[in-house]
Structures are given as C-alpha cells and as structure tokens.
C-alpha cells in the first residue's frame, strides 16, 4: 500500500487568515456546476454573490468535503450538523465563525444582516 496521500495537508507557512464568510458546499463536480451537462443557475447566483461580497473587501471561502475536508473537520458546529442531518445540512453558511444558515444558500441581504449582527 502506498503512503497516504499528502494532498490534504496544509503547506507550512501558508496559513490563510480565517474568512469572514465561509460556505460549506454539498458535494459537486465543481463549484459552479459547470462540469454537469447543464448549468445550475442557483450555483451561478452563489458565485455572483461571492463576487459582490469580495468587492466589499470581505474574505469569502468555499469548502467541499472531498477537496477541503480539514475545513469541515476543524469546525465543531459544522461537523455536529453534518452528523445530525447528513446531506440535508449542506450547504452551511458560517459568518465570523457562527453558523447562520443551514440546508440552503443565503442571499446577500442575509449575509449583511449576519455581518451587522456580529459587527465587532
């Protein structure tokens, strides 16, 4: 058996500051659904929402189980939801470390409300 795959370990010295908005996506071939035979418009909306948030200088991160398992594993609340509700839990939206939406993607307004509510 070959040695375990090293793809999931983080490169030392490349620690990224935690994002203000984190999206824990359901499993998809690719984040916009472009790999499938048809475009998923909701995922395109999400992609546009993220760009809008980035224009406000907010850091946004998206994670999938297969590509970013450590992001899931290191968030206790997210893992609790995943264990309880399994697939139904995804997508999960986390704003400044707090889960704000479960099972559906948020709107820009919802993100703003959450950001204002937790404004520091």
């Amino acid at each position, binding site marked *: 058996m070959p040695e375990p795959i090293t793809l999931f370990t983080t490169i030392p010295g490349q620690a990224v500051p935690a994002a203000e908005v984190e999206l824990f996506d359901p499993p998809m071939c*690719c984040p916009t659904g472009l790999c499938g035979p048809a475009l998923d418009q909701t995922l395109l909306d999400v992609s546009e929402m993220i760009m809008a948030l980035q224009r406000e200088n907010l850091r946004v991160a998206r994670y999938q189980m297969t590509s970013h398992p450590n992001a899931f594993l290191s968030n206790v609340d997210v893992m609790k939801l995943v264990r309880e509700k399994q*697939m139904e839990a995804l997508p999960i939206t986390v704003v400044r470390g707090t889960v704000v939406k479960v099972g559906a993607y948020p709107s820009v307004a919802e993100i703003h409300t959450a950001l204002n509510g937790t404004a520091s």
Partner: protein
Amino acid sequence: MTQFVFFSGKGGVGKTSMACTHAVRYADEGQRTLIVTTDPASNLADVFEQTIGHQVTPIAGVKNLWAMEIDPDTATQEYIDRALSPLRAAFPAQMVRVMEEQMSGPCTAEVAAFDRFTDFIVQDKTFPEFDLIIFDTAPTGHTIRLLELPAEWSQSIDAASAGSGQTCIGPAAAIQDAKHKYENALAALRNEALSIFIFVLHPEAIAIRETKRAIGELGKLGIYTHRLIVNSIIPASEKINPLFAARSEMQARYLEQIKAELPYPTQRMTLLSGEIQGAARLRQVGKIFFDGESAPVDSETRTGKTVSVMTSSIKEIRARIEPNGQRRTLFFAGKGGVGKTVASCLTAVWLAQQGHKTLLLTTDPAAHLGDVLGQPVGDAPAPITGLQNLWAVKIDPKAAAETYKARILNDARQRGRPESAIKVIEEELDSPCTEEMAAFDQFIDYASQADWEAVVFDTAPTGHTMRLLELPMDWSQQIDVKVFASVEGNAADDVAKQRFGQVIAMMRDPAQSTFAFVMYPESTPILEAWRAAQELATVGIYPGLVVANFVIPPVQVTPFAQARRNMQVKYLAEIRTRFNTPVLEIPLLPQEVKGLEMLAELGWLAYGDEVHQAEPV
C-alpha cells in the same frame, strides 16, 4: 540518477516490441531496468508471456528487469482510498459514500492514472533502485494529452489560486500541494540528460505526419525528441514477391521523406517473418536491431500446419452493416493502427452508394479521416465532394471544448449574468476535463441524431474508446447521487439523463448498433480486442462483426511471405474461436488506401455481390 526512455508513436507500429527489446538489452548489460506501460490496453504481459499487473514485477529469465502495467481502474481505486482514508472516521457513512461515488467520475480516473505516472518520473526516493525506467507509452493522441497535463494543470492551479479558488478538476481540486510534483515531472521530461524520447513509426504517409505533429506538440511543451525508429522495413530479398515489391517501393519513397522532413538520429528495423514474444526472441531481435545481424525466416512458422480458413458470407456480413428499417449505428473499435479508419471509410462509402444517408465521424484525437477520404474533414458535418449521401465530421476535443464553452457562456449571458461572472465561468472551463466532457457531449449529440440512416464511428484506440463509451453509464450513476442546489438544475439533469439512457439503449440493441472490432491476424491485436470486447460485455454490449485487416493472399512465392501468411492463417482461425461473429477480411494492399475511388472499390470487395468478392485486388 534514474534515466527515462519514452517510446511513442501510433498504436500498432511495434512500440511495445521495441521498448521490450531495449529493456532486455539494457538489463542484460547490467542496468537495473523497469519497463512501465501507461496504455490502458497494455500488451506487455503478452510480449513477456507472463502475468505482470499493477505492481512492479520481476521478469522471469531476465536478470535486472522488472515490469509494471499501470491499470487505470486500480490506480483510481488506490487514489480514492488514499484520499478518503482520513475521512472515513470523521464523516457519516452516507456522506463518505457520496464522496466515493463522486470520485468515481471520469475526472478522477484521469487524475489518478496521471498521478501514478508522475510518481515514476519525479526524482525522489520512490524508485532509487532503478538505473533506467522505460515507458511503453499509450498511442500518440492520448500520450500527448497525458504529457500535456502537467503544463495545463500547473496553469490551472495558478489560475485557481489567483482567481476564485475553484478549479473544475473536481476531486483533484485539492492538488494544490501536489503542484511541485507535477512541475518536477515536467522538468525531468525536459531534461535531455535524463529523458530520451524514441518515436517508432512505419514508413507511411500517415505515420510521418503523426510523428511530425507529435514532435511539434512536445516541442511546445519544451520537450525535444532525440531518436526515431523506422520499423517494419520489408527485406530486400522480398523484391521478387509482387505484393511486397510494390510495398517496398512505397517504403523507399517514405524513407526518403523521413530523411528530409524528420532530421533526427534514425535507426531502422526490418519486418520479421514471425512474432516477437518471450525473452529469447527479444534477445534475438536485439541482435538484429543493435548488432545488425540478419533476420532468419522463422522456421517454426514456415512449417506451420495448414488450417483451412472458413470465410463468412456477404449476406451474413451485410446483415450487420445495413440499416434495417431503422437507423444503423456502426462503431469501428480496436487498437490504433489496425485500420479502423480504412474500415469505417469503406463501409461509409458503400452505405452511401447504396443510397443510405450516412454520417461518418471520428472521436480519435489523432484522427486521419481526411487523409483516407482524400479531402479535409472539419468539426461540423459537411457533405463529401464527389459522393452523394455521405457526410463526415471530426470530433476534435479542443474544438469541441471551444464550442461547449461558447454555448455555456452564451447561455449565461442570455440570462443576464454580469461579465465578472462570465469571466469566472470561463476560467473554470479552462481545465483538462472540459475537453473530455465536450467531446463526450458531441458524441452524445451525434449518437442521438435521428436524421441519418447510418452513422459510422471511426472510434479512438481501444482503452480510450472504452472510457468514452462507458461515460454514459458513469454519468447516469453520477447524476443519481449528485446533490442539487436548485430544482432547475435537477430538471436539466433529468433531461440529460434521459438522453444518455436512449444512447445506452441504442448501443445495446443489435438491431440498431453494431460494434465491429478491427484487428490484424496477430496475437497482440486479437488479445486487445478480446479484452475490450469483454469490457464492453460488462455494460451489455457485444461485438457484431470482426474486421480482419492486412490479410496476405493465400498463395505466396517467397518463404518469407509464406511464413507470414501461415502465421496469419493460425490467427484467422483464432479470431473465429474467440469472437462469435461474422468476419470480414480486408486484404493487404500494395499501396495505402486513399481517395473515394479506391474506397468504393474496397467497399464493393467487402460488401458487394459474391462475384465481385471473388475478384483479386
């Protein structure tokens, strides 16, 4: 430092034989040598007459020699296991299952096989025990794509980290940390002190063009070839045999062309009267190739027992070719270089002459449909000049990807998506998987078109073809487990799924579809086709016809030609025992097949009435 030797060239040119001959020679000289094949339809085991498989295996009777066949399925499973092992404990079983299903898609297979391939090239602690690693690579088009991947992926990863942090590589989205590995692999390939590329080719027009193209493609990647082996040169003693004399003259012209247009160090290898199998035979071939010894006529073959060859009736064969009240779809499958293109062209020409509206198309990235037809074939179906009812088209993966991208971007624009969003989509579509996906999408398109009476596919070489054909099954499975963010996405996928379902049903129905396996009567092509047929059987598809190509006419004047004929007779009988289908024989011709006139003549010979069949070529 371990050195690398890559054998490249069109399938069927003797790449594996030459790679094995080199491997045995170097091993005998005391170099610890590993020979690796990345061809999904490998025949390394056939040449060494022993089981090899997906691990480094010592070769019996040759000290210092080991071999390995990279099996894409095993590589994929290993890759998935390695990737998922840390997740099994943490995630609920249902989610692990979904991840596993997701990683079973076509992208992972490509990533995994490639990952395994680079493991050998990267100069680390992985294989310090070998002085030399020889790669018996996959046929040209596929090889190039494999070698192109490091460059594309490095770019893909760069683009991803600069842009949205997303790539369409799917399960390989996590390859960020593996980037250095791919860069190292490419650096090793570019280092002339470490890597040698040997192109094996026949002295034929198509082979010369393909070799030039392949060398050009490698040049674009900063890889420069070092050597050529021109194989299967007809011995001078055969000039008294009219069939071989004509072919020998043709070869002489092409040898001149090679000298002029491919100015690289070139070695020549003579056509042998018998096959190349087993260590002893490989050593003998080594003496012919490296030391210039003359090739003996294989005595065993010369005294080979006479087997009467039963021929299939034209009626039997035509029943598998002609439309039967509904559209007929024909797939010509088989190893590269066996004559798939010629078989599909002559069939399409004959069908068109019978008055059937026929579409001829290729899914082979290294297609030479236009060379055989004698007129260019583009990436949109166009009527063939000089023959009614015949249209032809080439599915070029790169062109298909452009069309596919344009369609998706246009759709997004029409829905009023802002340019910034379009740019993100565009970036995502610039990934190696898009080509595969787009070529498949076009394949499905043509496979579902109702306005043809006959559709003739000149398919890609075996392993690649199987993957392409299995994709519909993979996708329906994929769609079953895919989790959707919107109802609209779900509905669109249902439509796609239905479309795939129809194509699968069509491919399984012998009244509508015929899988014709093309091979020449020799051990390796028969075994490869046989394995491919077994693979197809697992998806409910069975061969309907075998085309035996390059058949030497029964009576030959020289011992050499008679030895080759006897060898073929043995294998023509084996074809009949292995495949329960009619067998269409196409004779070895004194010149290359080119142009509609010659194709029409061959079409008559193959499918015309019995009187025509009896006439000599």
